[in-house]
């Protein structure tokens, strides 16, 4: 690019902190998100102690946290090293919020999307580089506000990540911080999604038609549209709830509400159902925001490592577009027990069954792609391969939740926790790990260690199943997901053994991440040097140097063919890159 000289005279701040290069911003997003993921997971590991050993002093943290936060804090939240029910609720709410809005979405959309998507379409940068920088910093501020909320009087938000009214309206101050933080995060996503869509439509290299785009780019495009159209209603809902809390309006407060024996001083006339509608209008498309980019990552990895074209690429594209579209009319399946009427429930049950079809098509296409491929079992591929059955478990266990009759029994039990964690944890987060192993050489110019990577994979895969599989049994036994101590109920007491198993699984999963952290940092320094195309892959990002310079491509690439031309008969090599004109 003509501004190549720019990269030399930029100061440290412009180059690494307030950079407008999509690659730096992508790395900023990914690293921040990984830190938040680990932080969110730590909150959960603390909660698992309370669940497994209620009333017992927490080892190490039971003494460490009180000494960090002071005596006053310890007396209300950590008496005798045991977390209080309020603290437990805060940790639960913040675990969900942090994992979804500060961890997974910024990682797979902000991180991978920002870094890989422009490279894959042969663009020099995103369409609006400054806007891109702004969206990262707005996200960062949102994250900081969320973290700061832990220090608010009464602790962080404690009404669940869904912040159902009226509980959230009458909750402690942390909820206000949560709402402000959410408004920042939503704004950041909106800025990002505008940028993504314009970039995909305007900055594709010559010859890169829509149906020559790698599937990852398609997934990002649909995701961006979901963010664009589904997120603003939650911003509106957040503003309304903020008004309820700060200005004393009663949008979500019904007449004569009594909380803990006290009649609330609200004018009334509001509707708690309204919050659920506006929340789930976002939050169901959000599920696809979590899963579609993961499918995109997996598709790239499976194509490169089976040495075969993706089976049914166009079918997958149509499916993903259909998924995105349909995801706007399924949200009320989260609300079957609100009594919104059987006709509406029947409608949403039907659409929910319909939306499972394209998901199954996506999974099937990837599965068939494996058939008779010469599969390379590297770490990225192992994570990608385990994504398939894990996501299938998560998806199939969702079907009973999509039907009102069975949902009424299973709603708000551990079954639902098991279901969506199978989709997001060994699903999306495994896909994200796969993506890290796959694109690490492109970002840093060095390979990650395969040995440590495989250790990370096998330990994580086993541990994560130990964590979540028991939850299905517990849920079927009717244990509520929000209990601080399930032994209070006889059926909960009977299932306490599974809770202990699940908790040990969670801690083992935490330990397993040490392999990843070590691998990540050691490989930056000591990893084997990577060539431009270490995986012999076909898509455009591999035609740029590793790491790509400012402006990405030395010569603007021209695209000659579809994205996954592997093992083309009659070729000397088993891959045919998109930018190579003749063999």
């Amino acid at each position: 690019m003509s501004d190549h000289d720019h990269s030399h005279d930029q100061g440290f701040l412009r180059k690494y902190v307030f950079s407008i290069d999509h690659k730096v911003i992508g790395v900023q997003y990914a690293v921040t998100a990984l830190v938040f993921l680990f932080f969110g997971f730590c909150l959960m590991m603390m909660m698992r102690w309370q669940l497994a050993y209620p009333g017992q002093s927490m080892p190490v943290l039971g003494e460490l946290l009180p000494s960090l936060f002071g005596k006053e804090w310890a007396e209300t939240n950590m008496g005798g090293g045991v977390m209080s029910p309020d603290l437990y609720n805060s940790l639960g709410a913040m675990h969900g919020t942090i994992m979804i809005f500060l961890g997974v979405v910024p990682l797979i959309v902000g991180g991978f999307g920002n870094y890989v998507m422009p490279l894959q379409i042969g663009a020099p940068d995103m369409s609006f580089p400054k806007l891109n920088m702004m969206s990262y910093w707005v996200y960062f501020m949102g994250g900081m506000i969320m973290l700061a909320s832990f220090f608010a009087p009464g602790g962080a938000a404690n009404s669940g990540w869904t912040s159902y009214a009226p509980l959230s309206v009458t909750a402690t101050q942390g909820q206000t911080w949560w709402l402000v933080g959410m408004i920042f995060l939503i704004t950041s996503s909106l800025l990002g999604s505008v940028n993504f869509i314009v970039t995909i439509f305007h900055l594709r290299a010559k010859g890169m038609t829509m149906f020559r785009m790698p599937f990852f780019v398609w997934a990002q495009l649909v995701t961006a549209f979901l963010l664009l159209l589904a997120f603003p209603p939650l911003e509106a809902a957040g503003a309304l709830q903020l008004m309820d809390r700060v200005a004393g309006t009663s949008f979500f407060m019904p007449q004569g509400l009594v909380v803990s024996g006290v009649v609330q001083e609200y004018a009334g006339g509001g509707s708690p159902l309204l919050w659920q509608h506006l929340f789930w209008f976002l939050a169901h498309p959000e599920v696809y925001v979590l899963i579609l980019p993961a499918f995109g990552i997996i598709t790239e990895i499976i194509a490169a490592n089976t040495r075969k074209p993706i089976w049914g690429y166009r079918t997958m594209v149509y499916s993903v577009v259909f998924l995105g579209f349909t995801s706007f009319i399924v949200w009320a399946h989260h609300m079957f027990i609100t009594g919104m009427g059987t006709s509406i429930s029947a409608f949403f049950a039907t659409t929910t069954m319909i939306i499972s079809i394209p998901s199954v098509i996506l999974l099937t296409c990837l599965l068939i792609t494996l058939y008779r491929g010469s599969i390379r079992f590297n770490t990225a591929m192992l994570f990608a391969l385990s994504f398939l059955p894990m996501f299938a478990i998560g998806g199939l266990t969702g079907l009973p939740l999509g039907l009102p009759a069975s949902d009424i029994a299973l709603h708000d039990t551990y079954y639902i926790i098991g279901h969506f964690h199978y989709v997001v944890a060994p699903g999306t987060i495994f896909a994200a790990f796969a993506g890290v192993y796959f694109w690490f050489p492109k970002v840093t110019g060095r390979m990650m260690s395969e040995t440590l990577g495989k250790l990370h994979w096998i330990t994580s895969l086993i541990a994560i199943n130990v964590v979540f599989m028991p939850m299905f049994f517990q849920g079927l036994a009717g244990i509520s997901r929000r209990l601080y101590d399930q032994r209070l109920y006889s059926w909960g007491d009977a299932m306490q053994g599974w809770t202990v198993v699940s908790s040990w699984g969670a801690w083992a999963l935490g330990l397993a991440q040490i392999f990843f952290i070590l691998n990540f940092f050691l490989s930056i320094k000591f990893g084997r040097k990577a060539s431009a195309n270490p995986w012999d892959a076909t898509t455009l990002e591999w035609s740029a140097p590793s790491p790509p310079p400012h402006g990405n491509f030395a010569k603007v690439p021209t695209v000659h063919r579809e994205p996954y031309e592997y093992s083309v008969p009659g070729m000397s090599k088993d891959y045919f890159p998109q930018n190579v004109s003749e063999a």
Partner: protein
Amino acid sequence: MSAGVLPYTVEPHPVTGLYSGKLGTWLFLASEVMLFGGLFSAYILLRVGAPEGTWPTHEEAHLSWKIGGFNTLLLIISSVTMVMAWANLKMNNFPKARMYLIVTVILASLFLTLKISLEYYPHWHDGLKPSTNVFFGLYYTLTALHGLHIFGGIVVMLYFIGPGAGLWKTNPEYYTNRIECTGLYWHFVDLVWIFLFPILYLMN
């Protein structure tokens, strides 16, 4: 990297027929539609669900159609002056375009001034606050969000009248495009008010 390096910041893309800023603005406006949509949806659900006789009548609402109607006119006129600013840039008449922009800013400021001095302030003084009832909650939230959008528009226009005007000398087409995008946003703000006026002032 300066924006000028990237393609399609000024010239339209051959396939979409748009320069990037315009596509971006339209996408942004789509999200704005959904933002106000969330609030409109709340209005509809709460109003339909309101028990008989609890929604304030026209007299109880204390909103004068005279002020609302006058403000509607101000915004409509400002939309015309905005589009005239763009048309004059297209005809290479920068001084006139700038004059139209200044008029737009004045009209917008007048709108906000009237809103605050003749409506918010006396209402608040009379004890009609957001917490009074759901209608007033919605009224304040909707108009405040709309007012914030007006304020944002004023800031952007002031930028293009003042420090941003230098772009006209170096790259007039780029400047014209930016005014067109500002205009799109401004017309959208006008469009939201066209719905807010009957909903809040006339429908009780």
